């Protein structure tokens, strides 16, 4: 056993990368849920984003266009969910699960010609002076752009929800759609937009896996990251900055346990792997004591009685 082999700076730097897919998907789902919609189809939207982004990047040779396509792909798929739950008034839990099934199949069909291809590389930023700084240089200034985009997105969502009028309306819709409707807000339109935002973010998260983190296309490659993103939103008690914290924690546990293994420490991997979920449950219990809980209308169907 040699714990000194673990370099904390590199550990933090790599957990930031490991956390980015679930961070992106999580912040999108947070917005969706704050609007009162529970979309369990994150995994399906992520994997669809992963192949859309991969295919677009391979065809155009531009990772940036790949990410744009991924966001579009995720948003398009989420429109199906939006139609089912907002217009056909179908149950959200069932629709979300169906969306995951559909997305996994669709992505596999779309990806048939892309197995074994290497995507164009996404450059890591390298600022001559800053990146070479000891400790902070590698952590703060040595990543690809999407890592920063994820963090910026968290900040943007936070500011949007807290300070903007549109954010206020979104929260109102999530707390009580009937009251929001009575005030003249377009509940359905707000929710559809929130769902699409969630889909776009999930798509970006999936493309981060297929274009940067792995990078490769294989069927089912998101391997459950979408479900972790769902847990993340709950863990964060629907607060943007806590999503960031949670993503680093969830990502950190994986990276840390691999580090401990490599350092020769005999650890029960299964028990460490279940710890984020147990912590999430604990957070849920603690949270239910105070009243900053889930959006009150989460998962409920809205139909304007006329």
């Amino acid at each position, binding site marked *: 056993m040699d714990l000194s*082999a673990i370099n904390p700076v*590199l550990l933090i730097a790599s957990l930031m990368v490991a956390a980015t897919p679930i961070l992106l998907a999580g912040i999108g789902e947070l917005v969706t849920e704050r609007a009162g919609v529970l979309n369990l189809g994150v995994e399906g939207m992520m994997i669809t984003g992963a192949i859309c982004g991969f295919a677009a990047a391979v065809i155009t040779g531009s990772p940036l266009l790949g990410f744009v396509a991924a966001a579009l792909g995720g948003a398009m798929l989420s429109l199906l969910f939006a139609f089912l739950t907002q217009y056909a008034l179908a149950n959200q839990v069932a629709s979300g699960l169906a969306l995951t099934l559909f997305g996994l199949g669709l992505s596999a069909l779309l990806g048939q010609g892309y197995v*074994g291809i290497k995507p164009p590389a996404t450059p890591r930023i390298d600022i001559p002076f800053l990146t070479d700084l000891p400790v902070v240089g590698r952590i703060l200034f040595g990543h690809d752009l999407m890592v920063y985009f994820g963090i910026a997105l968290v900040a943007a969502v936070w500011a949007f929800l807290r300070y903007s009028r549109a954010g206020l309306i979104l929260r109102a819709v999530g707390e009580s759609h009937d009251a929001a409707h009575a005030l003249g807000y377009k509940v359905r339109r707000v929710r559809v937009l929130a769902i699409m935002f969630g889909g776009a973010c999930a798509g970006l998260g999936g493309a981060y896996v297929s274009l940067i983190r792995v990078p490769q296309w294989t069927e089912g490659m998101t391997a459950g990251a979408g479900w972790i993103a769902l847990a993340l939103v709950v863990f964060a008690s629907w607060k943007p900055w806590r999503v960031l914290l949670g993503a680093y924690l969830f990502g950190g546990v994986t990276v840390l346990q*691999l580090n401990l293994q*490599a350092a020769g420490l005999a650890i029960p*991997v299964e028990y460490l792997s279940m710890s984020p979920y147990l912590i999430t449950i604990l957070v849920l219990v603690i949270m239910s004591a105070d009243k900053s809980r889930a959006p009150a209308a989460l998962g409920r169907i809205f139909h304007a009685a006329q």
Partner: protein
Amino acid sequence: MKMNKRSFLAGTAATLALVASGAMAASHAEKLKVGFVYVGPIGDGGWTHEHDKGRQAVEAEFGDAVETVFVESVPEGPDAERVMTQMALGGAKLIFTTSFGYMDPTINVAKKFPDVKFEHATGYKTAPNVGTYSARFYEGRAVQGTIAGRLTKSNVVGYIGSYPIPEVIRGINSAYIHAKKVNPDVTFKIVWAFTWFDPAKEADAAKVLIEQGADVILQHTDSTAPQAAAEAAGNVYTFGQASDMAEFAPKPRVSSIIDNWGPYYIKQTKAVMDGTWVSEMTWDGIGAGMVGIGEITDAVPADVKAEALALKDSIASGAYHPFTGPLKKQDGSDWLAAGETADDGTLAGMNFYVEGIEGSIPQ
């Protein structure tokens, strides 16, 4: 193996099935139908992908004389049993079941279809119409270990395992023995991913090993994620696994172990056509071509390449066995005396590290 009396109760269905499959066979008298049951999608780029290439090799070899069918992503258990039965009912006369977890389902279905031949990959149970086949990947690991031991500057070799099963442990031991032989200072860092398939996690595992000083990475997982991580890190060497992963050559990928099922599938298909098929436990390696060693690139010094190829040839010809004594187990107890080679039984169930490897196998 204990016989299960209840399975014979399913007689009614079996009899009907036989009549039906007999009728099918008559209508396709000249064309042999060969079925393949896959555990993953054929687009997994690894295990199932290679089996499907084997299937395509069968089609290419026999053309119109065969018809191949396959079902992908079949969960182990009752679904597998149903798919096999369905293939047998559909007239398949030879069925390859390509995952360890299909072992008991294969035996069950084989009982109901005595005139259909079954080939089960990586298992240990046979029947008059069930043979098994597996590849001696550890032979390839010996070659990799030699190259790894020579290439490493930090004397730290990283190893990514899936689950701690004999197959993976064999590979670790074989690679370690041969790395140690050429470089007495080498140490192995072993990380278990505890998943068959999660590319993102494999990428993390590779990064962790590199950060902890490994400059050669061996992997017993199928995705190219570790290759990409090594490429990003710069001066790290890797080996392709399952498929050649040539898109990462000449560096980081300096060589590879390729699952090459095609020749075996062709041979067994021919045997069924000729009526010479018999139930066997096949465990082939480099010599028979089931384990392929991908091109060793120029990133490897010429003398090391020559040494590796010499080792490969001596294994292929049978002159050398990768597990040749004197060897001790990790706890220091004797395993093989000088000149003694490991028997297949011990290898098949290998659950210990050889002397010198640090850490313990997770339970």
